[in-house]
């Protein structure tokens, strides 16, 4: 009886397994096999001489990173900057998507959406220079401030303002692109629900609160969870372009620190160790939120 059950179950599920074969092959070839390189975090690797051939150094690579001057400050900066980025990168696109959704005029909407995702295509190498220009003492923003009788502000030289600059410019660069995902999610809301709400006499605000937001809730939870994986990635390219000696105290992050360790030499072992550390933290955060969402909201994120 049980065997029969298993057999029918297998036959029932077989197509699902078959669907996954291409993905599994790709994962094994390009992710799992190369993933064995993680052993390097515990080795002193310079040149590949065969599996596990590198001299084993245990936790030395990790210790080396932790012993860096200002390691604590750097960790703090990394987490502080990335959490701010995660929060605002989540909220802003939702708000913009909702506002766009409320706006009339399909043509204008399309034009605006296209405009908003433009900065996404400019690399930090390009934007870095433009941001320096705009925020400099003689830049556009400071000209405006002075025109209104204010004192020029050193946005990029003040430890107080620098993290804010990082967060703002990051959100500005990417919000348009993330908005697209929410716009797509909005399309999947059943229009009947709005009709029903209107018949109940619900205002626009109430409709947003009771229909729209619940409708895109899965997408919000999903993107929030996935972005947790970035809690130790505060945005290397951006910080690297904008960081200067005056704001090292507030702007130096884990990745720029590792970069400095490895300047000019390929310190693969140290980089692997840092990468492993970041992966573990992300893994824990994502797993915890996965189980929380399942346990308390009975919702499987993925």
């Amino acid at each position, binding site marked *: 009886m049980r065997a029969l059950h298993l057999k029918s179950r297998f036959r029932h599920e077989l197509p699902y397994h078959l669907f996954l074969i291409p993905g599994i092959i790709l994962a094994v070839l390009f992710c799992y*096999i*190369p993933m*064995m*390189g*993680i*052993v*390097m975090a515990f080795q002193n*690797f*310079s*040149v*590949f*001489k*065969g*599996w596990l051939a590198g001299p084993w150094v245990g936790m030395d690579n990790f210790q*080396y990173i932790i012993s*860096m*001057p200002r390691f604590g400050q750097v960790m703090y900066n990394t987490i502080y900057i990335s959490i701010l980025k995660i929060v605002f990168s989540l909220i802003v696109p939702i708000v913009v998507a909702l506002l766009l959704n409320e706006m009339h005029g399909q043509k204008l909407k399309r034009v605006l959406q296209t405009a908003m995702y433009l900065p996404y295509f400019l690399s930090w*190498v390009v934007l870095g*220079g433009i941001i*320096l220009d705009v925020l*400099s*003492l003689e830049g556009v923003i400071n000209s405006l401030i002075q025109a209104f009788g204010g004192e020029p502000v*050193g946005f*990029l*030289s003040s430890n107080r303002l620098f993290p804010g600059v990082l967060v703002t410019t990051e959100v500005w660069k990417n919000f348009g692109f993330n908005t697209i995902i929410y716009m797509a999610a909005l399309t999947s809301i059943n229009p009947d629900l709005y009709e029903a709400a209107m018949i109940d006499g619900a205002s626009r605000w109430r409709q947003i609160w009771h229909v729209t937001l619940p409708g895109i809730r899965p997408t919000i939870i999903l993107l929030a969870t996935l972005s947790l994986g970035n809690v130790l990635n505060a945005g*290397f*390219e951006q910080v*690297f*372009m904008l960081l*200067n*000696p*005056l704001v*090292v105290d507030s702007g130096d992050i884990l*990745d720029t620190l*590792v*970069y*400095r*360790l*490895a*300047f*000019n*030499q*390929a*310190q*693969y*072992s*140290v*980089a*692997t160790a*840092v*990468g*492993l550390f970041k992966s573990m933290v992300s893994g824990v955060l994502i797993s915890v939120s996965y189980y929380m969402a399942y346990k308390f909201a009975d919702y499987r994120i993925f």
Partner: protein
Amino acid sequence: MRKIAALSISTVLLALTACSSPSNTNTQDTASSSADPKQPIDLRVGRYSLPTWGYPAGDDFANNIWYRHYADKFNLNVIHEWTALQNEYNEKLNIVIASGSIPDIVIEASTNQLETMVKAGMTADLTDVFEEHASDLTKEILTGDGGLAMDSATFDGKLMALPYTTSVIYEPSLLWVRQDWLDKLNLPVPKTIDDVIAVAKAFKEQDPDGNGIDDTGGLAFSNWLFDGITSTTGFFNGYHAYPQSWLKGDDGKITYGSVQPEMKNALAKLREMYQAGLIDPEFGMKDTTKVTEEVSGGKYGISYGRCWNVYMYGTGLEGQPDMVWTPLAAPSADGEDVFANVGTTVVSYYAVNKDYKHPEILVQLLNDYNEMAYGPNRNDPEVKKFFAFEKGQTIVEQGHLSLARTLTTDDATVKSLEYLIEAIEKRDPSKLDQALTETGKYEPSVAYLDGKGTGYMEYHQVKAFKTIVEGYGTDHLIPQAYGGTTETMLNKMGILGDYEREIFTKIIMGAEPIDAFDTFVSEWHKLGGQQILDEINASL
């Protein structure tokens, strides 16, 4: 600039590393010479190119005059195993080395890369091949610096690579001043540091470009501080301070230039200038590319940098046809002679894969290059074709296409520069044939002086050559006293260098008191500097 070259390196690093398949196959040219002499010998290389390189019609990177010559003369079949653009070459070579599969000949490896390869036993011992095959000329050039370069390629008594030697005479950080602005404001050429400050002040305040707008600045330098262009190195030299160099002390011990007390005086002066508004209040945020652009755009008229700087500044000529630069030996703060700290005589290294059957080919290629570039037939038009060809009006270089090269030694370079300068001054190229290098600057310079042609940049560089020959010669240069890499240096030098620039910037900008320099010196030693010095001194 360096920032971005850096960006890519780091991407590799942040992406981590390791290994999968033991595919250490180094495709061997078993098709060898002994069996069939007609069978061409394969030579696999990884090379970099620049998008600006030009080729005669029909030629390209993989099919050029040098490779055809190699095929004729050495029966070589050059194969580009991989190519990269110049700013990615290092990174690609790092990965190729780490994956354990280097080409037959590794071209232009850095000190670190050579070290990694030698430690991993990937490169061939060239001691015997060099003895046997190197021509006298090659030996003369490679040992022209007194053996420093060859020593740096020697590990445990074995020669593991051939150094690509250069002449450090090109490297002093000169003071470049806009002569047209000086003339306009009736100012003399600056002779002391105080003059430099006075000129910077005048350039900032007296509207030297005469456009009626307050849009000019004082002394220009970038946040990298010690770069080849828009630098402060020459300024520090004026105070007998030699930032970022390994110096040999009177006791024979190696010390580090940036932590010497002379640095403090120079920093104090820069700080004064900053307070007086003679330095861009935001220089800490501007990289070399940015500041260079500002200089060429006419914002600044006084800046330190190397002899080639006008090639960058010259782009502003279109908008400012009167722009003329005067290169000066860095003025002194106290009237004592100024010395310039310069780099090592080695640009990079050529190494041979230990599995390659013909290590002697590298030596032969280098002999061949030296013979063509510096040998008695170098002025033969047929030979000259290998180094440059005419494309329409312009002369395009192609010497860089050869697989192995060296530059002339300091003495030879100085001689050549003297011939060049004399030839231009006398308008007589007859002695130019005796020069080994830089002869190509004659025609454009003369044309420029005669008011025709576009030799603006060449002529300015010749002026800088003159400044170097007269102001420094070979006896006022302080080369790096150590060119290798120690264990601690690998781990700590990057951090120390950043720390150094951070403190110096803060001191100049007034964010730290001037005495922060003393704290920096002790911290520098504590954070690994002392250990590095100990390791260096122990290795000597």
